[in-house]
């Protein structure tokens, strides 16, 4: 009986998530990214418990108050505490991100994998749809849609979904074409696996890693879409607090109370930096490359 000559005992590997977290924490960018993201997600999740005031509570006496001990970030034109509104806004914005990105990812990836695997008709149809979307100027299209179905978060989410689908479709399709050539896909087919099985069990799991990086980098875009639309008045309807609507308020009162606009911009900046850095750090950790220095 021939036995394998093993290396020294292989220790049980730590769960992938822990390894990933450790990896991310090891770089400066990763630390910054992870901290910012955790801060924002934390606010979004813990919103009802950590807001110092009711975000919609009007207090005329505190109208346009500058930052102070009572209102850490000041108050807006109706005396509503800005800190509370920002925290509340993070919940709303993150919900849009999760739903918007989630739905777009599901549809875009599914169509992309099917198209990339070789189903030409589906692929062609979807590609056509995506090309049309990509040729539209987003803000104008959004305004047009808003005028048709009304403003509101639903509209914002719909716009996000519609504009993200082509991105995920294209990447998923291109990657699928590449992955389809891998030896392990050939091995599965050689064993008799059906196309469905190959797509679900072999291609999709190997695609997700890259998509996660993409998603992280797209979050600032989504935040930007919401902020832009709400700023234009086509997004959140008052009194709903979102970062975009706060910017809108801030802009209206920029002479009397500049702090509002500044304060409203901060979470957007943090989120953008955070998610971008996180995306970069994720990409680096999922793609290890041995750096070779210049030659001796």
């Amino acid at each position: 009986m021939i036995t394998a000559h093993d290396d020294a005992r292989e220790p049980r590997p730590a769960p992938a998530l822990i390894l990933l977290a450790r990896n991310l924490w090891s770089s400066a960018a990763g630390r910054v990214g992870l901290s910012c993201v955790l801060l924002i997600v934390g606010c979004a999740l813990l919103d009802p418990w950590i807001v110092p005031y009711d975000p919609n509570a009007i207090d005329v006496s505190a109208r346009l108050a500058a930052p102070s001990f009572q209102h850490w970030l000041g108050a807006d034109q109706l005396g509503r505490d800005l800190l509370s509104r920002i925290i509340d806004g993070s919940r709303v914005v993150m919900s849009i991100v999760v739903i918007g990105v989630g739905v777009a990812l599901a549809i875009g990836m599914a169509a992309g994998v099917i198209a990339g695997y070789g189903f030409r008709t589906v692929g062609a149809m979807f590609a056509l749809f995506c090309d049309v979307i990509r040729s539209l100027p987003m803000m104008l299209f959004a305004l047009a849609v808003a005028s048709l179905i009304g403003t509101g978060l639903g509209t914002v989410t719909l716009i996000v979904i519609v504009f993200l689908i082509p991105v995920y479709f294209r990447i998923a399709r291109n990657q699928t074409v590449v992955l389809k050539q891998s030896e392990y896909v050939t091995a599965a087919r050689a064993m008799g696996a059906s196309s469905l099985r190959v797509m679900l069990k072999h291609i999709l799991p190997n695609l997700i890693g890259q998509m996660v990086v993409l998603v992280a980098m797209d979050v600032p875009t989504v935040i930007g879409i919401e902020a832009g639309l709400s700023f234009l008045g086509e997004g959140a309807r008052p009194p709903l607090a979102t970062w975009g609507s706060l910017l809108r308020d801030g802009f209206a009162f920029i002479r009397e109370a500049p702090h509002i606009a500044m304060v409203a911009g901060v979470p957007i900046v943090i989120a953008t930096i955070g998610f971008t850095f996180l995306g970069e750090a994720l990409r680096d950790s999922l793609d290890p490359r041995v750096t070779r220095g210049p030659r001796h």
Partner: protein
Amino acid sequence: MEALLDIAEFSVTYPTVRGRVTAVREVTLQVREGEVLGLVGESGSGKSTLANAIMTLLPDSAEVSGRMAFAGQNLYSLDRATRRRLRGNGVASVFQDPFTALNPVVKIGRQLIEFQRQKAGRSAAEAKLLAIDMLGRMGISNPAGRMNQYSFELSGGIRQRVMIAAALLTEPRLLLADEPTTALDATTELQVIELLKSSRHLVRGSIVFVTHDLGLVAELCDRVAVMYAGEVVEVGATQSVIANPRHPYTRALLACDPRRMVAPTRRFLTIPGKAPDPVSVIHGCAFASRCTEVLAGCAVERPRRWPAAGEEYARCLRLPT
């Protein structure tokens, strides 16, 4: 006469994520003028690192100790800039994969002329003529026309011959061939072997032939050095090393070769176990854990060269038998 390449107690280490790796371990070796030396080893033996060291192409992070002298000059006692200037001037190389060594977007001809640029007093026109002549000598049909082709238009065998031509055109004192036939088919390899044999006179200097194939060495090399786990475990005249190997690893390696098993067999020989982890510190003989002739002292005492002086030796506690 002093050796062209004199390597004495030469070691190379470099850091990795898992720790410090000792790729080459106190190697002592000479290459005389005009001789062909075969450097044989399996993967992980350190032969490629040693070859890179000879070509002064080690990564920045590598640490070197000991002596490596080319034409009397210790390469690693110089500062990096001086060493870089020496590169390409006297040592030429041929690699395993000529495709990546040749620029795919530049025509062959232009590259062959460029390679000769360091040769003082050689005009571009002269270089071109010499290149065409060399291609012809390599047995390549239509050499003038080939000058206008790109590397991807050529088959593996021809590419390798172009690479050899390029190396020879620089009239090196030392030609280093790193697994030049490994990626070639058996019949193409035969072509290249015959070519190397017949063009030996074109190389006025010496050749170091790095390979994992002892059979190839038997065809082409005057002397052979066998490497294991970063050390040279045996070196000597090719015929005597192959007919009468003194080191158990050499013996085992020869025994594993299916080409040397005359009677057809269904039972193949292997060397059980694995080479020691290059990150670890090796006590005693590196081959001890896999040696069928191991003695009690082998795990403790590192074998010294026997005979102690001279260019031919083996490292084994069993010597002299």
